[in-house]
């Protein structure tokens, strides 16, 4: 049977992608411009045996997502702006306790209440470092409605593969844009890993400090009884706060993601084969970049786009490959240069890189990118 194609909003595609990945629990608090995710989840989840919970705030939403996951559900939430700030509290808990879940941040103008209905991409660094202390995290950014669907499936897979919260960094523009989506059924290997540890219950440990093989997370209520303590803990999950345990735990939480950065690095290339002007971008600004690329190509300029679908861990190899071929690299984004600073961090050969920024709550136009290129030529 061929896949159904539907015309829908980015926000709806995320919910449908999550459900295709087996999501059956949503806990959240409505906030513009993410609210359609809550609305669709409340409509669709009861129909497939799932649960939608509207919590009293983002603090409790994130905790309920975690609690439900421990009890066996596949859970997600969505928020925006300051709601994402509040979720950082328990995102750190999910990192520490290795509770897989998916958090959608539909970025809007800020800081604080900011431009509630307007697109922005100012949460790049907050996604990476928003919660306290050293940790690693996975962040994916869709640039189209189709990618909202596809990356939701990937996010769940990665969350369980690496036992970590995964952030989908959308934006008000991608969230509300309406495009066709192929609602394909994921292959079994694309789905989240099993919750059955397949060992004797007396031998089960909820953590394994092996960056290549995190432990399988059993469900409360199964024959596997376990403890999940957010204080510094050893593999039993019980608090153990010795210097050695802290050292092993923090390094493990970092390594299990950073050591696998290449496996997690999803990128898309447009006209990159012979590109001399390389546009590196993500989310809605990747669409602006493609618009600029098409205009430049029409003028005979060899422009290409490297779109980062994975933002964290930063796709260092793909970016360095693009920089290596670039006479000029351009990083357009709806913030004051958060991705640009990361690109520069890995610009070891000292290529010319320029930052195109905008914080007006409006998208970057292709002409603005072209103008910035002409100014440095």
């Amino acid at each position, binding site marked *: 049977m061929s896949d159904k194609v539907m015309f829908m909003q980015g926000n709806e595609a995320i919910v449908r992608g999550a459900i295709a990945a087996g999501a059956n*629990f949503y*806990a959240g608090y409505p906030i513009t411009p993410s609210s359609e995710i809550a609305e669709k989840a409340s409509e669709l989840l*009861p*129909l497939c*045996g799932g*649960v939608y*919970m509207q*919590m*009293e*705030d983002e*603090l*409790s*939403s994130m*905790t*309920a*997502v*975690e*609690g*439900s*996951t*421990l*009890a*066996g*559900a596949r*859970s997600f939430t969505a928020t925006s702006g300051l709601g994402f700030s509040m979720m950082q*509290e*328990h995102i*750190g*808990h999910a990192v520490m*306790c290795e509770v897989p879940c998916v958090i959608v941040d539909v970025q809007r103008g800020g800081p604080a209440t900011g431009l509630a209905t307007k697109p922005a991409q100012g949460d790049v660094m907050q996604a990476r470092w928003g919660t306290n202390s050293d940790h690693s995290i996975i962040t994916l950014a869709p640039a189209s409605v189709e990618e909202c669907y596809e990356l939701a499936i990937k996010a769940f897979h990665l969350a369980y593969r690496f036992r970590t919260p995964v952030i989908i960094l959308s934006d008000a523009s991608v969230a509300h844009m309406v495009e066709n989506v192929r609602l394909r059924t994921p292959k079994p290997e694309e789905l989240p890993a099993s919750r059955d540890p397949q060992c004797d219950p007396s031998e089960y440990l909820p953590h394994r400090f092996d960056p290549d093989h995190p432990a399988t997370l059993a*469900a*409360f*209520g*199964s*024959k*596997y*009884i*376990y*403890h*999940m*303590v*957010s*204080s510094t803990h050893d593999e039993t999950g*019980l*608090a153990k706060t010795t210097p050695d345990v802290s050292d092993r735990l923090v390094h493990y939480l970092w390594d299990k993601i950073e050591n696998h950065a290449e496996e997690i690095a999803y990128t898309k290339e447009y006209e990159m084969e012979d590109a001399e002007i390389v546009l590196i971008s993500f989310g809605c600004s990747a669409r602006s970049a493609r618009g600029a690329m098409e205009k430049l190509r029409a003028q005979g300029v060899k422009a290409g786009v490297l779109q980062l679908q994975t933002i964290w861990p930063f796709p260092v190899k793909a970016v360095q490959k693009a920089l290596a071929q670039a006479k000029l690299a351009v990083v357009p984004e709806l913030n004051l240069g958060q991705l640009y600073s990361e690109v520069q961090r890995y610009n070891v050969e000292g290529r010319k890189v320029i930052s195109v920024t905008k914080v007006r709550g409006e998208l970057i136009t292709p002409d603005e990118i072209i103008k910035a290129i002409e100014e440095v030529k």
Partner: protein
Amino acid sequence: MYTWKDYVGYDRLPHIWCSGCGNGIIFNALGQALEKMQLPLEKVVIVSGSGCFAKIVNYPGVNTVKMLHGRVLSGATGIAMANPELTVFALMGDGDGTTIGGNHLIHAARRNINVTAILGNNYNYGMTGGQYSGTTPEGSITATSRYGLVEDGFDACKLVEAAGASYVARTTAYDVLELQKMIIEATEKPGFAFIDVLAACPTHYGRLNKMGTPAEQMLKIKEGTVPVAKAAKMSPEELKGKLLTGKLVDRNDREDYAVLYAKMAKEARGE
């Protein structure tokens, strides 16, 4: 056949609480109550947050999870809704339960989530050195109210009653047999059940407020309470400054949230 030792995780004891602290008494009562109920170990989940009482998650032979400070009931809500077969206990101090997590207390009670919440209420933040909380009585001396507290604490039982809890009870750590009975009743009650256990923190609150030995402090706490039946015959003047103990609410007029949600979903699916 399980014994209380299986539930509390006897092999992991001794616990870290100070001698005379109410936390150990409540933990023991929970173990005894669980022995009487004989719930399968794997079907029980204990959720805590931060503070002295929250350390409880390090011992039991049942599933436990330590959420962040204040997020005990929201975590318990997620667990109870994802698997309604589980028996979920939310163990909270007055910081977790009524102060930083106060909003979640209102909404867990309002939704009538099938969780048994036990408040170890010792009027201060023991773990961080005895600062005042949302239940500390006016005038108390604490680490952050050296000249006497200007705010007044609130009656958590009245709050959860107003918010819609199915079962509300209060006792003191002195009345340990009553507490055991209440834990059994609360666990067997569908919907949100709340037990306020007035307890001593001899290390901080008791010491700063010159309440004497731990035993004397427990007695003083008990003397500040009146059983509901007795209170019915007392005048408002006689009841001034007293907290009521016993079963305060026992409602049967509303099903718990998981049951209601499942019914709604079934109807939505046209089943």
